[in-house]
């Protein structure tokens, strides 16, 4: 074969492997975001309602949802604002709530290793429960290129962000008019749904139970730091348990991100629900 023909046929086989397409991947991601609206919308509305109750302006409410894009920490921060906690406690508590995103980054950093740095920033900006679990359980994961996975991730992320912002505004405006009782149930159920699939080993059960007890018992007594205290005591209790038999060094993966984040974050993100 001439060298041109060889190049062309090599190019063709690349095309066949990458046949799903970035546009289709983007649409799949956006579709997943739509499906996830079942919890993003009420949760966003709750954030909006609570923003109004906390006395924030609409601009401030939208600012939190836009720049933080993390419901649990937004709710925690606003509760602390209502309690007139010092600003540093608010910041540290919110970041404690968001520590799980560090594990999420471990799960996706390996997937997106080849991306240029600017695109990694975009991945980071759209790293939420939804996008990470969606990507890791995507049925086309094995057949798509990194670029297509990036398109899926960003499609899901931007779609989720849009829903989040929209319903923050909706909740803010309509909040005073409606009984937020139904919404109040959504947040604890959503977080229990994230937590329960993780409870797979005794240390995790211990950590969860101790953390629950501490966060409620210490409430009101530790200058609003009960969440941080609960996390530390929960982890401490789990570490006090006898260590599992250590795996052979060769069994441990080399990449630190995959080692820390891969296993743990995959557990966090492992829903086997339907995906487009």
């Amino acid at each position, binding site marked *: 074969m001439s060298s041109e023909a060889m190049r062309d046929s090599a190019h063709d086989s690349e095309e066949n492997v990458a046949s799903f397409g970035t546009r289709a991947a983007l649409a799949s991601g956006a579709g997943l975001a739509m499906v996830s609206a079942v919890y993003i919308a009420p949760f966003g509305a709750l954030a909006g309602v609570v923003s109004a109750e906390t006395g*924030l302006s609409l601009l401030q409410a939208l600012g939190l949802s836009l720049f933080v894009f993390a419901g649990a920490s937004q709710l*925690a921060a606003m509760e602390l604002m209502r309690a007139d906690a010092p600003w540093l406690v608010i910041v540290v508590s919110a970041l404690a709530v968001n*520590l799980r995103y*560090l594990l999420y980054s471990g799960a996706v950093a390996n997937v997106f290793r080849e991306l240029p740095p600017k695109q990694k920033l975009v991945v980071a900006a759209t790293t939420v429960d939804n996008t990470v679990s969606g990507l890791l359980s995507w049925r086309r994961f094995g057949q798509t290129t990194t670029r297509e996975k990036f398109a899926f991730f960003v499609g899901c992320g931007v779609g989720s962000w849009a829903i989040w912002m929209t319903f923050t505004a909706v909740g803010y405006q309509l909040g005073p008019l409606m009984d937020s009782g139904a919404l109040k149930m959504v947040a604890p159920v959503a977080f229990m749904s994230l937590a329960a699939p993780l409870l797979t080993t005794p240390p995790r059960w211990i950590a969860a139970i101790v953390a629950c007890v501490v966060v409620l018992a210490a409430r009101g007594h530790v200058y609003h730091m009960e969440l941080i205290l609960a996390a530390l005591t929960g982890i401490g209790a789990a570490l006090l348990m006898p260590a599992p038999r250590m795996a052979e060094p060769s069994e441990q993966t080399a990449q630190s991100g995959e080692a820390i984040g891969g296993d743990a974050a995959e557990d966090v993100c492992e829903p086997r629900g339907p995906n487009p």
Partner: protein
Amino acid sequence: MSDGIFWLVTALIALGTFALRFGFHAVTGDAEPAPWLKRALETLPAAILAALTATLAFGGVVDGAAPLDPASTVGVLVSLLVGVTTRDFMRALLAGLAAGGATMLVVGIL
């Protein structure tokens, strides 16, 4: 809280959260964390998410500010049961929301 302090807090939370989200993208090389640190990081989401659930569902009760909410309680218990047995986030969520919603209807009727 003044406007200035609010935006300071928001900016700090946003930047810190972004740093966490970017976290492992910045790591290169094969440095492996200590085994105890690995185990700590692996139990961290379970501990934080459980504590958040407890705070959201029962924090008001502990403060004495609100009565126990039957919808949240039932929803959380159902979600726990379904989540542990199926290990499926969506199923746990939908089951919990359905159970909580049903509880609200029942309590509303009684």
